[in-house]
């Protein structure tokens, strides 16, 4: 009796609803499709047919490349037909990303970063136009696409597609394979805008059977040269901090594997390797393996033999020919061009590099840092992914072991997480503050926790123009605060420090001033930069670097 009932009850459940829905969606767009190719002129109708109210839609928007044609088409949808979408966007960069919410097409949002749209984002949140699920770090958002946020539809972008749907992303692979995988293998529809439809792609970055639909965009997707820093804007203070970091951290800990954030201070470090670093005899001893985008300011260090390998999150406009000509250093495909992958580079940055160094807008007395300031909801991006000590690491390296921590037998090394900043930002705003703006923003926006970028207990070193604070050496919270205050200059955090306290901290090795590190402050001149302009970078590259027009001042 019971035996015959079992199968009947099981048959009542349909195990292929997502697959069926996908089949129905693809059937619905059939009038606008030939093979896998959608008619760009009927994009709006196609989206009306494809999407259902309440769908979870991943819209590719990274900090560099943007599926902008699809974003525009989505914003153009009729809210009577398509509404209450739940969008997953890693970087809210385009006006259209928020237009979608204002027009009522979408309602809920999970994202990682909202740089250029951060002011409007804060307003829409305050007005209740957007329901924010959570603000994530980059890989965290992608990770959730494989757990509880699997997309029903993924709207992506690539350089080229062939008629079988094979995709060529070129140097800017970034997140496309990851989002495609999350959708393609659990009943989601993958729709990709491409710059060009071709008979044969130069290399297959994403296989065609993951891709359901392609559309040739009327114009190439937008791509931001986010990692290009013009050496003209690097000042003497940046150079001084670069010298302090090089001697006080890179040399002292023997850092061979590392990641650099975006900023003039870290660009200065890249540019003094062939000059100051060379004089210190550090070539081959530090900075050999990197996880970072093809920063143009890294070209002199690469050319002068400092760099053995670079794995990239994404590409960088203008560096294509240079990267293709240096395949021993960069990861390149059989077609010659760069292969990047944000998630894998983040993974490498977490477990395989000894150091992360980056700057922040605000740091509090406990070294918590944040880029969220009043009226702006910027989110995090990838810095927290790199800027923490991953407890899943087990392989040792001299740099990692130099920060030995824990009690025997559970001894372990530690990643160097370095914050580098001038004590005051332009306009006289202190970088070191008593309370982060993020705390207030969290309260105003009703967030469960303040949006802190890098937690203070992960930070091992802080570099300012005053010196280096070795926070990892502090044995008490009070010592940590003192060490940080000693390099915080005349900010509210640093101004109370007494000279004799600083002397004691120097003696104990918690703080190093320029003279303790053998850094001659007078030598911090722009002449120390291996390249002083974008034109110099072009010359260093042997003419292989083609800077975007906005950086050309010749």
């Amino acid at each position, binding site marked *: 009796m019971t035996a015959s009932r079992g199968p009947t009850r099981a048959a009542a459940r349909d195990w292929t609803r997502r697959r069926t829905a996908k089949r129905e969606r693809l059937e619905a767009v059939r009038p606008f499709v030939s093979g896998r190719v959608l008619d760009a002129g009927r994009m709006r109708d196609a989206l009306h047919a494809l999407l259902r109210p309440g769908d979870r839609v991943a819209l590719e928007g990274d900090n560099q490349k943007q599926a902008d044609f699809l974003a525009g088409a989505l914003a153009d949808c009729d809210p009577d037909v398509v509404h209450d979408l739940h969008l997953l966007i890693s970087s809210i960069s385009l006006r259209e990303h928020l237009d979608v919410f204002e027009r009522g097409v979408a309602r809920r949002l999970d994202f990682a970063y909202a740089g250029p749209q951060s002011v409007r984002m804060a307003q829409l949140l305050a007005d209740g136009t957007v329901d924010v699920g959570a603000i994530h770090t980059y890989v965290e958002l992608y990770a959730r696409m494989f757990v509880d946020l699997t997309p029903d539809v993924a709207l992506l972008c690539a350089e080229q597609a062939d008629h079988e749907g094979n995709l060529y992303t070129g140097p800017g692979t970034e997140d496309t394979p990851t989002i495609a995988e999350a959708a393609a293998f659990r009943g989601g529809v993958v729709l990709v805008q491409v710059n060009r439809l071709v008979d044969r792609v130069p290399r297959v970055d994403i296989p065609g059977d993951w891709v359901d639909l392609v559309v040739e965009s009327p114009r*190439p997707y937008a*791509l931001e*040269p986010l990692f290009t820093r013009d050496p003209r804007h690097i000042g003497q203070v940046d150079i001084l901090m670069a010298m302090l970091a090089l001697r006080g951290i890179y040399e002292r800990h023997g850092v061979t594997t590392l990641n650099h954030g975006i900023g003039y201070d870290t660009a200065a470090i890249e540019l003094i390797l062939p000059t100051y670093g060379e004089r210190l005899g550090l070539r081959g001893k530090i900075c050999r393996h990197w996880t970072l985008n093809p920063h143009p300011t890294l070209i*002199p260090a690469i050319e002068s033999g400092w760099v053995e390998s670079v794995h990239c999150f994404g590409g960088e406009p*203008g560096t294509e020919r240079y990267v293709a000509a240096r395949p021993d250093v960069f990861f390149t495909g059989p077609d010659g061009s760069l292969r990047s992958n944000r998630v894998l580079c983040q993974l490498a940055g977490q477990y395989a590099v000894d150091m992360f160094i980056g700057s922040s807008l605000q740091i509090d007395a406990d070294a918590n840092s944040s880029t969220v300031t009043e009226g702006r909801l910027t989110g995090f991006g990838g810095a927290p992914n790199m800027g923490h000590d991953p407890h899943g690491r087990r392989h040792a390296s001299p740099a990692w072991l130099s920060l030995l921590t824990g009690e025997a037998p559970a001894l372990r090394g530690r990643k160097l997480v370095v914050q580098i900043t001038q004590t005051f930002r332009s306009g006289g705003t202190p970088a070191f503050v008593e309370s982060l703006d993020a705390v207030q923003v969290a309260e105003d926006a009703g967030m469960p926790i303040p949006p802190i970028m890098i937690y203070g207990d992960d930070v091992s070193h802080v570099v300012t123009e005053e010196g280096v604070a070795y926070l990892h050496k502090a044995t008490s919270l009070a010592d940590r605060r003192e060490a940080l205050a000693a390099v915080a200059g005349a900010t509210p955090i640093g101004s109370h420090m007494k000279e004799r306290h600083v002397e004691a901290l120097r003696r104990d090795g918690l703080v190093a001033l320029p003279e303790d590190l053998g850094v001659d402050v007078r030598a911090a001149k722009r002449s120390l930069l*291996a*390249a002083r302009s974008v034109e*110099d970078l072009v010359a260093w590259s042997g003419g292989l670097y*083609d800077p975007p027009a906005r950086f050309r001042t010749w």
Partner: protein
Amino acid sequence: MTSPAPTGNGHTNGQTNGQTGWNAMLARVGFIELDARARAAALLDDGTARELCGPFDRIESPWLEPQDVVPASDDGVVVVRGRLDGRPAVVIAIEQAFQGGGIGEVSGVKIAASLSLAARDTREGAPTVAVLLLETGGVRLQEANLGLATVAEVCSALLELRALQPVVGVIAGSMGCFGGMSIAAGLCSTLIMTREGRLGLNGPQVIESEAGVAEFDASDPTLIWAIDGGAQRTGTGLADVLVLDDVAAVRSAVIEAAGRGAPGEHRSRRLRESRTRLDAVDPADPPEPADLAAVWARAVPAEGDRR
């Protein structure tokens, strides 16, 4: 997204051609990096530089403080006597970091008086070359008419001296040379530029705000340098020598120009040539910047007095 590879056009005086080794890059000392005082010292023979009317003489503009601008003790112009490859010389350097190199009453008079004194010394048997380092947006707005008047004095003194001795102009960057002082640049016996230098009567932003973005898009660096940039200005004969941004290269170009003496006929005197060139361009259908040199070469075949 990316712009085309830099072309080899207009590369002279050791300008890199894409094959420079990295050791050569490290050996270069940027001239653009230097402030006005350091630029002047870098050009003159070692140990010969002597500043006149320096900051400790405290000759400041009286017009800035009432307008809430902090004045400078040298009013943004550095005058240095010395020797240039053994030859008596005066280098007059405009400091771009102070008021964008804007010329006011005091700074303008410093330039004009220096040029006049060089002419006087020359007439009295001590031939003195002048070198003008022109990084200026033109007349300082805070001193409007007084600034304009001194620019006229500068031009008049320059004309006086250039009849006797070479007046060498250098526009290295990054400010460029615009406004009234671009007229002074046009009067120089020899005008030296880097690729980063710019020369124009009206700056891009002025043109855009007066005539609209369709006339000139001041946010487009490619357009700006295609028209005002050093490579274009030397390519079209509005400047004479294109140099690499390198102290040694700029100094040797200046020494060479000073040694060459005055041209047979100054550019500013070649009126018929200028008129023919203007006639060759239809303002309603202007040529592409890259084609301008060829258009003008067709209109005015190379003449004997062209160097």
